[in-house]
């Protein structure tokens, strides 16, 4: 079973399409979408429509904080650019699309693995705390019996592991290198953001998990970020949301 893991698409149609094509070439059999389909980018309607169609065809999708926010409307505690883009996004989604986002589950447990799919973390998914450090990763791994946790929220690809002796490690993956992830350890993998990479590399991130081989590959996919950025500008969204797509920041 080969599973594609996509997260933080953020209404970036060009990146999403490039990743879907790339993943199809990887003989992927199942799609898992880890939340934050919208926010920041210029194509919320197209992206949500595509996600909805994929879930109808069997893809797993969980809810992200941006998805929740756009359903509820923005709150004053949010960063200004996030607030602005959420209001703009609400204006570009129809009722059915908002309803679809509202219906998404916070987590999905998969007996195969067993694996846990969640946007932010396993200990309190609805509070959206980030897995930023090894300490956070251990906290999340302790909160689940799943051998494999896949989450998004953080935009940089990362892999954490926890041994039976309680020793945790972290690893910044290199693209396209298959990493053995045997199930006697616990693993927490962050595939990285499809639609808004932030590690100074504009290429879209995603990962493929081969459950049978117990192997995980992180990928980087070059896409037309100039077009995606131009659309952000055309939409009248904040300039820096466009610039960061070209810089990968």
């Amino acid at each position, binding site marked *: 079973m080969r599973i594609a893991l996509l997260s933080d698409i953020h209404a970036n149609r060009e990146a999403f399409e490039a990743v879907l094509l790339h993943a199809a070439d990887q003989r992927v059999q199942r799609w898992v979408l880890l939340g934050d389909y919208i926010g920041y980018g210029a194509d919320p309607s197209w992206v949500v429509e595509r996600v909805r169609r994929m879930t109808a065809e069997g893809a797993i999708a969980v809810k992200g904080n941006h998805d929740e926010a756009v359903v509820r409307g923005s709150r004053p505690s949010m960063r200004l650019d996030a607030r602005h883009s959420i209001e703009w996004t609400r204006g570009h989604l129809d009722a059915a699309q908002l309803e679809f986002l509202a219906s998404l589950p916070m987590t999905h447990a998969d007996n195969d693995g067993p694996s846990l799919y969640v946007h932010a973390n396993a200990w309190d998914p609805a509070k959206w705390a980030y897995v930023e450090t090894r300490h956070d990763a251990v906290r999340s791994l302790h909160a689940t019996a799943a051998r494999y946790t896949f989450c998004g929220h953080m935009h940089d690809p990362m*892999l954490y*592991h926890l*041994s*039976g*002796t309680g*020793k*945790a*490690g972290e*690893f910044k993956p*290199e693209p396209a*290198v298959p*990493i*053995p992830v*045997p*199930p*006697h350890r616990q693993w927490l993998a962050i595939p990285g953001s499809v639609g808004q990479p932030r590690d100074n590399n504009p290429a879209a991130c995603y990962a493929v998990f081969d459950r049978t081989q*117990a192997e995980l590959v992180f990928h980087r996919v070059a896409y037309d970020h100039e077009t995606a950025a131009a659309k952000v500008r055309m939409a009248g969204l904040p300039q820096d949301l466009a610039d960061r797509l070209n810089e990968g920041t």
Partner: protein
Amino acid sequence: MGVEGADTQAAAALAASPFGAAALEPGVVIDGFRLETRVHQGGMANLWQVNHPDHAQPLLMKVPRLRPGEDPATIVGFEVEQMILPTLTGPHVPHFIARGDFTHQPYIVMERIEGSSLASRADDAPLALDEVTELGARIAAALHDVHRQHVVHLDLKPENVLQRGDGTAVLVDFGLSRHDALPDLLAEEFRQPMGSWPYIAPEQLHFVRSDPRSDLFALGVMLYQFTTGELPFGEPQSMRALRRRLHVQPAPPRALRSDCPPWLQELILKCLEVDPAQRWQGAAHVALALADPRQVPLSARAHRSAAAGWLARLRRRYFALGQGAPTKAPRSARVQATRNPIILAAVDLSEGSSELAVQVREIVRRVVTTEPGARLACVSVLKTGLLSVDDYNDARGANRQVLQLAALKHWARPISKGLNLDEGRLTFHVLESTDPAAALIEFAQRNGVDQIVMGARGHSTLRRYLGSVSSQVVAQAPCTVTVVRI
């Protein structure tokens, strides 16, 4: 690291598995592999000779010792080997066949190498100097190959070097190794320096696990041992004794063995420098030096006659202290292995090719200029006749050699003067062969050459009769080939 230190999940999984460690006995079949005889019982793992219907040759199965209270090093080391061995290919590692995971019965099945390890050679040391040189070159070639595949071995010692029938060195036991593109499962696991203490590099005491030059230190310890019959830093039994290598220089090999040539002492002591930056910068460089000892540039190390004075000790210690907090991460194995490329300039000095030789030199200059760590090996082939052992004389042959070498150095003069190539970064080799292309290809192979620069004659009678040397090299050389035309 007591019972609670053991990998409880693995141990629990194992207890529930149909095969306990005790259940392994001749005749048992695991995933199609039939256990025949136990060939080795080690502290960390047992080795079984196994057969499989799909494989004509007997294979080797490595099974970790898993019992409650077992040192976690056993388990994690085994995981590391399961992770790294399948990524390695080529003649210098045992060919990987299969692995079994910890939820069932952990094992690794690999090619069985018939030859014995170099432990017996270490027992017989001091060895003849020719054998020391030969063994060193073979191990260095194996190390270079593994480093190019992103892996630092980190537990190099005679027991972990086997030999194929043709003498090719095979590195085994990757349980402490590091692959620079895979997670390092051992990084967080232990608080004691990992490795075999007589051979461990100083930076490994500071938990640096990514520097391929650590393996060159261990190679230096082995060569010291083969040459003198002694270990340069003894067999430390305590952390205090282990740390001596940070500030005490080993006795120079020539003090223990008077016929050890200065070049060999230079080569060994350069491997044993406490600062990796002062060592050889790549295994291929060590192989090249061993292939042609005359080219080893001699420094004060070559002539050291007694254990170091207080100043050198102080210097070693000063550096070692600085090691506590490495300011920047060492380069990855692969980067280090390719960062200091060996460029082979194949120079045709025969009549009528001078214009081409000038052009080759210009291209070589450009290549070497853009690669600050590059080494340049200038090679020219003396073509001998088919009935070449012409007794019509050695003297004349030797003379041709000398003249050719002089001509080669003269050719390289503008490069050596212009680029200020220091400490043996420029070497000269005159090969004799009936087949120049084959000689160049073999040289490139043996010395881990990264790029060959050579000329191609446009249209000559010679080319029509002999075929093109450059096209044969392009087709068969194990590296990049740049062909220069005018």
